[in-house]
């Protein structure tokens, strides 16, 4: 190969690498940092809480119902001496009625003023999603859409990311 041709190829490679690096940087800028989520199932669909909001996940223990409160509040449970309200996410989202099962889990979620357990059918995984969050689909019923901060796609499955403040802000 002639020296001139070799130089031309090297320059072309360097240019391509610069373009690739710029494209990767731009892509990262568009996506922003990854979103860490706790993925769980509810009525056959996938939902998630932002991982930073989740304190722990426990198996459903005895829950004491409290008369005269809305049905989506299952009652109170004693978690190592801490009295927690337990909410039925299925009822809240209008996708059925939650019942504790061996696969079911209570996802303990914290906010500055409140800690609450949410009953889910099962917890799947903690994931990091690199793509940006999209607004909830317009076809979703308002009952669900009001509690979603957005949607992401994980392994070709649409995941509804729940808005903890909206869920707790509309209680009581």
């Amino acid at each position, binding site marked *: 190969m002639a020296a001139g041709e070799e130089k031309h190829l090297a320059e072309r490679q360097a240019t391509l690498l610069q373009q690739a690096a710029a494209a990767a940087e731009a892509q990262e800028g568009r996506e922003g940092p990854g979103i860490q989520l706790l993925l769980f199932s509810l009525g056959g669909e996938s939902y998630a809480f932002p991982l930073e909001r989740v304190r722990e996940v426990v198996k459903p*223990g*005895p829950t*004491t*119902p*409290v*008369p*005269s*409160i*809305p049905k989506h*509040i299952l009652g*109170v*449970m*004693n978690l190592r*001496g801490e*009295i*927690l*309200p337990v909410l039925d996410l299925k009822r809240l989202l209008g996708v059925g009625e939650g019942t504790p099962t061996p696969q079911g889990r209570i996802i303990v979620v914290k906010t500055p*003023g*409140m800690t*609450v357990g949410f009953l889910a059918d099962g917890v799947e995984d903690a994931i990091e999603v690199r793509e940006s969050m999209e607004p909830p689909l317009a076809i979703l019923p308002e009952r669900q859409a009001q509690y979603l901060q957005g949607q992401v796609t994980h392994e070709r499955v649409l995941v509804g990311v729940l808005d903890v403040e909206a869920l*707790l802000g509309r*209680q*009581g």
Partner: protein
Amino acid sequence: MADGASLEILCFRLGGILWGIEADRVDRIARPEEVLEGSVVDLTRAIGMAARDDAAGRRLVLRLGSARAILSVDEVLDLVPLSPNNLAALPPLIARALPDHRIWAVGKMGDEILLLLDVATVCGADAPAKDLAGSKEG
């Protein structure tokens, strides 16, 4: 009071739920077939419980100043001392969802939770009056 720091609580079951009332509120425990003198208040529905078979279980006759109130329960369990360590406020989310202050606190009984009934609040609510004077219930 059971001792300087504990509340003495009478525990009972109603609708599958473990409830408690301060023992000094309880005048006596009556069988369903007992004749109860005077006008009493039926608290069972007032605390949001479904109607139950009055012929079964027990009745708690409660003191409310000079008046009395009656609470039909499924089963009377025991008197237990409840220390401050085993007493907790209702979570705010639950307290806000209730129509009034009918449950003033919860007691921790192992894994189980005891709902502590505020008798004065429930009786101050629109509790349906039920005159049992001279009648034999059951």
